[in-house]
């Protein structure tokens, strides 16, 4: 049942030092939790359990409280981004042109859901709302590569290019 981050935590001592400095700088400011979490995400790219635990230990607040905030706001990521960031547009035009089934197919092939990352750190998957290419709907992106008018059958081939 627990949402294990599929990618092992690879935080460095240097990152931890930076985080501790941020906490030391902000800890006496009222309402410091969110700014600290934002800066932590800048440092690590996401907010894994280990990072939330450091924040909790340092501020002497329950770790669950940090997690509650992290899951309340969409801007906080619990999973790292992969080498290849796959995103599928679920905006109106793409959606009516069938990006839903495309998104499902990608989830099936990669074995991960929205906002997650494959255990090898290669692919992460996100949905987005309109990339300004409605004429090409449905659209998916892998990093900066845009693929338009895609069908479910083409998904496998596209992903294989990045292996």
């Amino acid at each position: 049942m627990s949402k294990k981050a599929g990618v092992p935590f690879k935080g460095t001592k240097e990152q931890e030092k930076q985080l501790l400095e941020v906490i030391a700088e902000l800890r006496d400011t009222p309402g410091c939790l969110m700014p600290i979490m934002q800066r932590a995400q800048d440092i690590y790219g996401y907010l894994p359990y280990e990072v939330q635990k450091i924040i909790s230990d340092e501020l002497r607040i329950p770790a669950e409280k940090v997690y509650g905030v992290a899951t309340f706001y969409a801007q906080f990521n619990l999973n790292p981004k992969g080498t290849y960031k796959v995103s599928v547009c679920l905006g109106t035009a793409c959606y009516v042109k069938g990006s839903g089934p495309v998104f499902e197919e990608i989830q099936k092939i990669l074995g991960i859901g929205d906002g997650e990352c494959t255990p090898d750190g290669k692919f992460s998957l996100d949905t987005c709302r309109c990339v300004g290419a409605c004429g090409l709907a449905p659209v998916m992106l892998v990093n900066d590569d845009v693929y338009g008018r895609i069908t479910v059958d083409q998904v496998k081939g596209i992903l294989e290019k990045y292996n």
Partner: protein
Amino acid sequence: MANVTLKINNVEVSAPEGSTILEAARLAHIEIPTLCFLKDINEIGACRMCVVEVKGARTLVTACVYPVNEGMEVFTNTPKVMESRKKTLQLLLSIHRQDCLACVRSGNCELQTLCKDYGVDNSARYQGAMPASEIDDSAAHMVRDNSKCILCRRCIAACEKTQGVGVIGANERGFNTYVGQIFDMELGETSCVSCGQCIAACPTGAIYEKDFTKDAFAAIADPDKFVVVQTAPAVRAAIAEEFGAEIGTNGEGKMVAALRRLGFDKVFDTNFAADLTILEEGTELIERIKNGGKLPLITSCSPGWVKYCEHYYPDMTENLSSCKSPQQMFGAIAKSYLAEKLGIPKEKMVVVSVMPCTAKKFEINRDDQAANGVPDVDIALTTRELARMIKQSGIKFNELPDEGFDDPMGEYTGAGVIFGATGGVMEAALRYAVEVITGKELGAIDFNDVRGTQGIKEAAYQVGDLNVKVAVASGLANARELLDKVKAGEADYQFIEIMGCPGGCVNGGGQPQVPGYIRNTVDVRAKRASVLYNIDKNAKNRKSQDNPQIKKLYDEYLGKPGGEKAHHLLHTKYVKRQVNKDQM
């Protein structure tokens, strides 16, 4: 403080400045309904059951947090108010799994009561998707079923603010919000201390203790088993509430009669073991003081506190008394001394305990709690579970005669019975230790400084040549405050009593449910504690060392307090735990 005058439903009321509308309405004999509100710990105005109209206000306001002011006009029962409250209930029902017939809280569910009061039966009105939820039964003592959760956050407040534990919280947002743990770790994997204060705070059947009444009934029905039951001090101070009595009613005699009628072979008292604990713990205290042992010595009767210490103050586990809790001491003696006396093989003996506590369910399965090669205690029930057994068996509690406990493990002193209230263990220990240290009989037996429901109490006593400084804390957030002082070197106590639940065991997580509106207005802790102090006041023997059956136990079997045999049976070890895990 100055008073302000306002009108509630056209009736003039004078209320202290700074009061809320909810408080002022009570002065006008009006109870405004609440669900999420718990005084001091959950004043968040979130559930919107308490809405009222205030003349001149743009919208309905939440009475639980809205302060009164001079000349204010409040209306608590207009059609607009009623309609809003009804709609709130309907919306709550639309995401509530309505399993009311068999629900453990049916009859004392606050949501059910309000729906009945407001005639809300149209549960189909807002029918639609239900938030996804899973049952978490990973902890030793409880089950959480979020399909009955109304997101009032009372459990979260109890866990974080009252207990300083904070392993549960609200995750995600909007329709997907649920009460859970960090990264959806199972509750049993977190540093939850099993205190059950979340259960006591829950207005519905979303959180409840793991029910072992079936196991108890099965053991009683098994002709091969000899089933002995022990009841903790605080159970008698609350059990009668389950049968309609006022808070603060002594139910001891009827409880004993009911246990006998349930078919237990022997009905004994944990108070006996509390007296035993005092001799062991008192001796340990004296030895540590005399021989330069680790001080302060901290009591270890409360398994919620012990687990909290292991998780949050692992560097202080050496301060914990090595004494087992009275529940476990009872089991260890029952399966040795008593079994031998009665000629019953220990394997055939089943020890059932009735406790005001859910952490006791965790404690019976701890390591090193099986002194005789079999578990000291087999089944730990809460006060609520015992009441359930009595009801299921058709025993008419209120019509029962008052009966007494069986011999020999049913005899107790006033010192044993006050274990159930905060400060009680401290007082009982002082009644023993002072006599041992001074070698003189104690004159004044009441140690009033350590009584009362304040979260932290301190006192100092001149005992012979020694100046003994003591402190008492109940509720783990208070314990944390006290321990931080000790760690910072700001206090040098020799002896500290800590109870996991605020007010001590009388207010334990396994006690009869008290609805929010009573919790908010009645000092439940003091009322229940008064039962125990009254028993103590009228007891023939008020010092543990005067318990004739305890003397006999040492003479015939254990030798001396703190001796080798006592050590083997009655003492235990602790482990160092961490807060949650290091990594996922």
